[in-house]
């Protein structure tokens, strides 16, 4: 896989604090890369470095194998978390302006905009002023202006905020389509369920350092804790209160229990042990959610 973006040991500090401390990561073609971290961890600083809004103090950024420069601006699309539009300007005019700033010619921009406006069924908005639009409507326009110039790399910071579930789904589908067409996407959000749904790869930044990085499946594998969810057919589960030493009861309700294997014995042994006591309807390894991984790593840091 080709690396679209490579961040190498980037550090950035402001007068009173360090925003990024030796952060490296790379984004491959057609990948959705989840950039996670608590508030104030340095995500926005990193995104601003990638967008050349600020320059790193140390380290380098490569785009398509070249050192990042202003020529790359047209190949990056950025939807910041704090976003807005000129309130007094007409929607169409404004979208044209933003597209032209990204390097499209007026003709190209107009054509592409009409396609998108038709796709989202918002052609009548063209001559409206932005202040007449609702927040969700304005967010849609912003999404369009971000992706319009068909960038190789898209950076979305909380792209779903302000959208109702229906519109959020429309946007999600568009993001997946973009991915299929080979666009790489950096996706920064606090909504872990959308990370689960969309991301191939995640990196976690906390206190200006990267503390976790890898394909989501590998990370989940690594963070498994040998916990198994067992669905019993009976409700007489008293035996669970006196488990042998290598087993630990995490959680129990009327007919379900979560059991953790504390030593390195196998799941088969656990099943064998349980079958002696009671009938089993279901047995499943509990895979940690991104949410749990997030909380555990950040709290452990």
């Amino acid at each position, binding site marked *: 896989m080709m690396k679209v973006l490579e961040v190498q040991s980037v550090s950035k500090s402001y*007068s009173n604090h360090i925003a990024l401390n030796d952060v490296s990561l790379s984004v491959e073609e057609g990948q959705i890369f989840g950039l996670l971290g608590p508030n104030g961890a340095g995500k926005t600083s990193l995104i601003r470095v990638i967008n050349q809004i600020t*320059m790193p103090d140390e380290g380098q950024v490569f785009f398509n194998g070249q050192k990042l420069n202003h020529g790359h601006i047209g190949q990056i699309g*950025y939807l910041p978390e704090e*976003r807005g539009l000129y309130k007094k300007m007409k929607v169409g005019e404004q979208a044209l302006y933003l597209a032209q*700033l990204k390097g499209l010619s007026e003709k190209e921009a107009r054509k592409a905009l009409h396609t998108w406006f038709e796709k989202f069924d918002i052609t009548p908005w063209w001559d409206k002023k932005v202040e007449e639009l609702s927040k969700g409507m304005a967010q849609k326009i912003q999404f369009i202006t971000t992706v319009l110039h068909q960038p190789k790399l898209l950076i979305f910071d909380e792209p779903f905020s302000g959208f109702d579930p229906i519109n959020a789904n429309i946007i999600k589908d568009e993001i997946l389509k973009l991915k299929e067409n080979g666009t790489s996407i950096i996706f920064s959000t606090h909504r872990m369920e959308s990370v689960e749904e969309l991301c191939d790869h995640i990196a976690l930044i906390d206190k200006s350092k990267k503390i976790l990085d890898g394909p989501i499946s590998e990370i989940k594998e690594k963070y498994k804790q040998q916990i198994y969810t067992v669905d019993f057919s009976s409700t007489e589960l008293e035996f669970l209160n006196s488990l042998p030493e290598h087993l630990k009861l995490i959680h129990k309700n009327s007919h379900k229990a979560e059991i953790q294997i504390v030593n390195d014995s196998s799941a088969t042994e656990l099943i064998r042990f349980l079958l002696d006591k009671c009938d089993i309807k279901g047995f499943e390894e509990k895979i940690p959610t991104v949410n749990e991984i997030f909380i555990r790593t950040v709290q452990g840091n």
Partner: protein
Amino acid sequence: MNKIILIIKREYLSRVRKKSFIVMTILGPILMAALMMTPILMDNSDTEERSIWICDESGLFVSQFEKSEAVKTTFFSEPILKVKALFQQSEAFALVHIPNSSESTISELESIINVFAHKPISLANRRLISRNIESVIESIKLKNEGLTRDIIEKTRADINLNTIILGESGSEKLGSTEIAMGLSMAGGFLIYMFIFLYGTMVMRGVMEEKTSRIVEIIISSVKPFQLMMGKIIGVALVGFTQFALWILLTFVLSTLATTLLVSPAEINPADLANGTELLLQDVEIPQNGIASILAQLESMNLTLLLATFLFYFVGGYLMYGALFAAVGAAVDSETDTQQFMMPITIPLIFSIIALQTILENPDSSLAFWCSIIPFTSPIVMMGRLPFDPPLWEIGLSMVLLIIGFIFTSWIAGRIYRVGILMYGQKVTYKTLWKWIKQS
């Protein structure tokens, strides 16, 4: 480069199309035309006859009161109490009471004359009354000293100085103090107004981008400096458009108004001169009128004056515009701008005050320094130009203005770059300094 043109275009078009721009552009000249027309119209409307009663107990004034077309005077010699009672019921405008006095004690009158009226009396009418009384008292005093008014009139001199400047090659040209002073004063004032009006517009524009949060989207496409300069230039073009329209419309309107409201026969050159006088800020128009004005204009190197005016106009605006942009970037709301506006407004106000003293004394060291230092030079040098300051001083001042512009836009660019992305932070001068130092 292409992008900065896009930004300029947007800044320009979005402002020129605004309703407020159109309204201001049309209202401005109407106000100006009104200002020019007022003296003419006022003079015409104020012809209504006023009747003034004078209760002259001394009997000294009856024979000597000047007759005037606008005022009808009626004299009474009865005691004041009786006259006052009559006045109560009359339509007369005012009643002047001159107490009993004799020629030898005339000086005492000066502070004891009263005027009774139904309504407060305007300054002009009071002046009219007091001028009349003063002239009578003066005549009486002159008589006491053995002189007559005629002798005084005969001895009066009225000099109209024609300054002739000797060129190095021996050429002579008519000096141009009054007109030149008027023009340069107007020029300096125009620069001052332009910087304030459109500098504030730049500041508001930056704040709008910041508070509407569009700025981060834009600076992911263009450099912050490009955005800032694009805005400053775009707003400048808005200003040029508005000024040009103002001048054009003022000209059209005042011509129209003059022809419509005043029939040609009635036009009194003195009134027109009065109107112009207001614009030229109390410049005295020489008695020999238009011909002399034209001669004076010819004697000045108008092209040079205009070229330097344009240079200082643009240079001053660009230098201050960058600072206004920086202020806009540093704050979150208009109320926070106050503390940072101070260092911008003080040199501007200082230069407009200095301009007036400099016109009195164009070669003073205050004039020299103020016309060299870039923060005051755009306005002050305008005031010195008609007095032919040495060329090297103009050159130095221009070079320094360019350096000043580069300096302020560098500083402003650094504040701007950091400031536009800072929200909800309390910004002090210390924070600004940190932003400037930040790499």
